[in-house]
Structures are given as C-alpha cells and as structure tokens.
C-alpha cells in the first residue's frame, strides 16, 4: 500500500497529464453535436456577451455591401409585389359578384431577425453565433437564411444566444434540387473554399447547365421550398459512378454575414410528432 502511494505521489505529474488528456479527448471525439453542453460553446452567457460587445464595433464594417444586397432584393420584391397586385386586381374583378367569402390563408412561415455576433469560415467545422435565443422564440433545428440564400441550422439555444451549424460544416447536409426539375440531391461542404460546395447524390439523368440555380427542396421542414442556395459551376469528378456530383458557387457571402432570418415553420412541431410516431 505504501509503495503504491509512493508510486502515485512520485508520478503525480504523469497522472495529472493523463487525466487532462482524457478529458480533452472525450470532448474532442464526442461526435453527436446535439449532446454538447451549452456552457462549452460560443452560445453561453459569457462568450456570447464578449462577442456581442465586439460585434457592436465590427458590425459596421460590411454595411455598404449588405446595403447593396438589400437594395437589389428590395427592387426584386417591389416588382414582384406589383405583378402580384396586378393579378389580384384582375382576379377580384373576375370573382366580383360571387358572394363566397375568401378564406384567410394560413401563414406557414414566419421569420425572426437576428444579428450575427461571431462567425468563422476558415476552420473545418464552422459555427455562427447569433444574439437571439429561446426567449425570442428560437428553437433547435430551425433553418437560418439571409437575403442571399441559406446559412445553416440552429443547433444549440441558450435563453439569449444561439449557435448555428454553418453550411460550411461537413456535419450539415442540405436537401436541395436543380431549379426547374424535382430531382433531389444533397449539398455538403468539402472544406476547400468558403465560396464553393458540392451537391452530391444526383441521379445520372439529372439535366443541368453551368449557371443553373440550386434551390432548397422543401422536404426538410426547416426551410421553405425554392430558397436559392447556389449556382452550378461544373460537374465535379468523383469515384462514385452511379451519381452526379456538381461543384456549386454558394450565393451567401459567409465572410460578411450581418443580419440573418430564422425560419419559424408553424408546422414543424406537427411534422416532428408524426416522424417520431413513425419511428416507434
């Protein structure tokens, strides 16, 4: 017993080293991102507050580019609004006289606006921290978009902050399709460049041309259908001969994110319930 104690005391530095190394390795290889504790992420109170403070300074840097994007989208929306108003006018004239009361359409998607307070694009696993949390209605597994396209999915939620898995993270696969046909592929980042990604698992009969737009499929319940994600650059070479893989240019400028929108799908809970029942 005494020799054992002596042994432990003599080599206590080694035991301490092994103890710390085991804790680190445990954190490093705990793969399921949903089980990570909120305190050890950038969405915790202390880290969130630090990033919020630094963002109050750096938030002004990209305003010009963001303003340009918003102007462009504003113009598009205005023209769309005019076209729709025109159509509504015509239809109202057509059904005038029919005394059937119009049914109030149920709004399926709603948006929560949030500010990006921390963002990375250079690591193999990239995450984004935003300044809205569960008190503002943000829940895990909600989709996140901005004025250009898809950004990611909410992963961990604190009461005031939330962490998003960026599209630039190989843990996140997005169900999407080439605009115009309904063939589903899956978009995943390959870690090379923050501006490009791959669309995998497209069947060989898919028709596409460089410049075509890739949009969300709407099958995942996180994102509304037909949100633009990327444009096709070329066919990528892979070892898998049974499917096409496309290299695509992402529409979102991940290097200069500022304000993002979190998609609130009012059907999300119902869909989850049904899926959970199906698994049982």
């Amino acid at each position, binding site marked *: 017993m005494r020799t054992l104690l002596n042994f432990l005391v003599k080599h*206590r530095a080694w035991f301490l080293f092994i103890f710390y*190394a085991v804790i680190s390795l445990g954190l490093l290889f705990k793969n399921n991102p949903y089980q990570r504790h909120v305190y050890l992420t950038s969405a915790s109170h202390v880290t969130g507050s630090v990033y919020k403070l630094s963002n109050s300074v750096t938030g002004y840097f990209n305003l010009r580019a963001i303003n340009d994007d918003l102007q462009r989208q504003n113009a598009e929306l205005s023209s769309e609004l005019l076209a729709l108003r025109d159509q509504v006018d015509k239809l109202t004239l057509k059904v005038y006289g029919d005394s059937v009361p119009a049914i109030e359409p149920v709004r399926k998607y709603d948006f929560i606006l949030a500010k990006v307070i921390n963002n990375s694009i250079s690591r*193999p696993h990239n995450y984004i921290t935003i300044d809205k949390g569960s008190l503002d209605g943000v829940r895990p597994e909600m989709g996140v978009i901005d004025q250009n396209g898809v950004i990611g999915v909410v992963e961990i939620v604190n009461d005031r902050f939330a962490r998003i898995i960026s599209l630039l993270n190989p843990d996140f696969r997005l169900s999407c399709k080439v605009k115009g046909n309904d063939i589903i592929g899956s978009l995943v980042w390959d*870690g090379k460049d923050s501006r490009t990604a791959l669309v995998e698992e497209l069947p060989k009969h898919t028709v596409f041309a460089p410049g075509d737009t890739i949009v969300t499929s709407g099958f995942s319940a996180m994102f509304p259908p037909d949100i633009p994600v990327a444009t096709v650059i070329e066919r990528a070479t892979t070892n898998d001969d049974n499917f096409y893989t496309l290299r695509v240019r992402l529409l979102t400028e991940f290097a200069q994110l500022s304000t993002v929108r979190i998609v609130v799908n009012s059907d999300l809970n119902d869909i989850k319930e049904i899926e959970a029942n199906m698994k049982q």
Partner: protein
Amino acid sequence: MAKTVFSYILLFVVLVAAQAVVFNQICLFGVAVPLVFIFFILRLPVNTGPNTLLTLGFILGLTVDVFSDTPGMNALCCTVLAGLRNPILHLYLPREDNISNPIPSMKSLTGSVYLKYVITAITLYCALYFILESFTFFALRMLILRIAASTLLTFIIIICIDSLTSLKSEKRL
C-alpha cells in the same frame, strides 16, 4: 508575489480575449492562423512545477476552446505543450540558476536561447493542432503548408508581444 499572480491573471484574460475577438478572425492567405494565446504558457516562470503548468495549460486551452467552438482541441494541445515546456526549456538552458529573472523573455534568457525555445514550442503546438484538425479533411500538402505558415505568423506576433511587454517593464523602472 501577489503582484506576479495578478499580472499573470491579467495576461491570461488579455490573451484569451485577443485570441477570441481578433486572432480567431485572421486566416492569412487561407492558411496562416495565429495561435498567440500559448504565449501564456511560454511566459510562466522557469521554476514552475509540472502540476501547476499542466493545470494552467489545460484551463487555458479549454477557455480558448469555449470561445472558438473547437471542443477539446486546444485543451489537448495546451496540456501536451505545458507538459513538454520544461523539457524544451532545459534543452537550450542547461542550468537555470544563472539567470537573474525567472520569467522567460528575450532579456532574461539570452536572445538565441529564447528564440530557439519559442520556435520549438510553437512548431510543436501548431503541428499538433493542425494534425488534430485534419481528422476532418485530410490533405497532406495543405497540412504541411498550414503548419509552416501558422508557425511563422504566430512566431512573429509572439516576438512582437514579448518586445512590447519588456518595453513596458523598462519604462516602469
């Protein structure tokens, strides 16, 4: 004694904040990432015991991990670096009794000893960090490039910080 402890706590907070807010956003030419916070481990007094070194190294790494969403990576690398710091130091400094100031710096150690000590530690840290990181996407050429570029960038910044801190202490005298 209390003054030394306080100055180390201040150094810890400043380095972690600088890493989280400034250095984590830098990725020069898509390869060079400055990992400047390890200056804290390099700066600890020469006569620090291995247990204190390991504990402080682990806490430092874990704190940086929390800020940069890399669970366990910096904690592991910092623990290894803290464990190997004294052996590295004694590789270039055979006897520690003939230096006046126990805090390693360009002035207290002679220039060449300090530079060798710093570059060895940084190379070790960067190699370990990027090898761990490359478990996700493996590309050998990119890996070597990242290690070399990051080591160089970190080395330059740490030498700058070292000269800044020694400048300040001279003024105080």
